[in-house]
């Protein structure tokens, strides 16, 4: 699905988080939102997800205006910085959650849900972990579960908020590669938020650099590195 972000503005009381952001993201693209803390990148991601509503502007998924659609009906997958797994459910039930809560008429059969969970566990390489609880997993494993859970209902769009932020360098690199492979295999349009420019440039097709609620540059990594558009971008690359 393509995503068009048109002139999105958002303020929290006196603080202006986003001041008119426009980005056009093509189907199948892997985009990074890069910026220092307070630049508005997470707010923008949450607005795309429907977890926050903008003061102004539109969000359009493949020609359909979803600006006023609540998160539950946008058909997106969202991966949270601190995983946000359900502590009282085991891994399999966490992953199945999005399917279990569907209306009876639309819900797949028990067997179909179980085999979908198996398939997702294999995809994130946690095959034998279905009956474990989140508290028994490492950070990297928890983030894999969160990813599998977000993919369960086959979203066309995957949104990730600093997905590797809380992990150590080695696990980070592993998960990064895994995510890129899954993005290609599943055929997703993905947007992830990061403050690490190396990560953004290594992983994304295009990187949007944000500063104080404005987009400074939105281009492929090679273009941004060759021709930084502003002093801010230049200073951010160093």
């Amino acid at each position, binding site marked *: 699905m393509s995503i068009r972000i048109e002139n999105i503005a958002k303020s929290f009381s006196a603080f202006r988080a986003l001041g008119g952001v426009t980005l056009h993201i093509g189907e199948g693209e892997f985009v990074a939102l890069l910026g220092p803390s307070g630049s508005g990148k997470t707010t923008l991601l949450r607005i795309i*997800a*429907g*977890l926050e509503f903008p003061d102004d502007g539109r969000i359009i998924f493949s020609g359909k205006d979803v600006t006023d659609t*609540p*998160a*539950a*009906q946008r*058909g*997106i*997958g*969202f991966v*949270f910085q*601190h995983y*946000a*797994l*359900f*502590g*009282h459910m085991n891994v399999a039930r966490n992953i199945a*959650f*999005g399917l279990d*809560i*569907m209306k009876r008429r639309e819900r797949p059969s028990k067997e179909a849900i179980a085999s979908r969970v198996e398939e997702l566990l294999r995809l994130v390489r946690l095959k034998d972990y279905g009956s474990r*609880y*989140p*508290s028994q997993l490492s950070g990297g494993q928890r983030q894999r579960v*969160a990813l599998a*859970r*977000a993919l*369960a*209902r086959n979203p066309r769009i995957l949104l990730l908020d600093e997905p590797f932020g809380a992990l150590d360098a080695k696990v980070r690199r592993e998960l990064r590669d895994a995510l890129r492979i899954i993005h290609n295999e599943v055929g997703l349009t993905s947007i992830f938020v990061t403050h690490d420019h190396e990560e953004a440039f290594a992983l994304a097709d295009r990187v949007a650099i944000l500063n104080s609620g404005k987009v400074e540059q939105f281009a492929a990594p090679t273009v941004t590195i060759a021709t930084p558009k502003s002093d801010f971008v230049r200073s951010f690359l160093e």
Partner: protein
Amino acid sequence: MRRRSPTQESGLARYTLILAALAYVALILLLPLGAVFAEGFRDGAAAFFAAITEQDARSAIELTLLVATISVPLNVVFGIAAAWAITKHEFRGKAFLITLIDLPFSVSPVVSGLIYVLLFGAQGWFGPFLQDRGIEIVFALPGIILATVFVTFPFVARELIPLMASQGKAAEEAALSLGATGWQTFVHVTLPNIRWGLLYGVLLCNARAMGEFGAVSVVSGHIRGETNTMPLHVEVLYNEYNFVAAFAVASLLALLALVTLALKTFLEWRHRDAIAALGH
């Protein structure tokens, strides 16, 4: 010999502190509790049971249980709603609402009772209106329930607010992003996350609902066999120099509290793994 850890005090200091703490607990908590039971059984078990099965005592016990059965569920519903609104949403006047929830804790119970006499009593604001329609609130069951609900209002909300605030909104947002409705999110995510805090709040709320004296005393009218709850009945008996009966009913009240605490401890022990998994 076992080495002591670097943060541990020397033997003498350690034992002095432990003894002081034990003596304090014995003097403040155990001795009065023991005295209540000892006095209740002073004339033997037969006198004890006669005192608690006597007509007025039975009606006081029934009234207390009825009041708790109605007011605790009410405060569970409103406590959860208040805690949920305060911790998961931003709105104007939030700080004021939090202060308001604490009001029953800071207001003297006598005042809490008087409020309802002022509102619904014979000379109260709505008194004549209600009298014309034959509705009794003060000196009747509805007044006792209102006063109890008011006094016990903060227990559930106060227990849940810090817990829900520390848990944040991420799990709820995850459920929403997975397509859950608000109600599904509440039932499958919020409620399981707060159940232990909720249980504790319910038990405290219940203990206070059964034990409340001041506010209930003002609105009850002390009609024996009709509007006397257990604490009020204890006072009546005591004022009539019927000490054995007074302490017998008092020990029953204390027993209810002990059972409540034992129940909580047992449930925590039974579900210790689940509690540990939730991280609180």
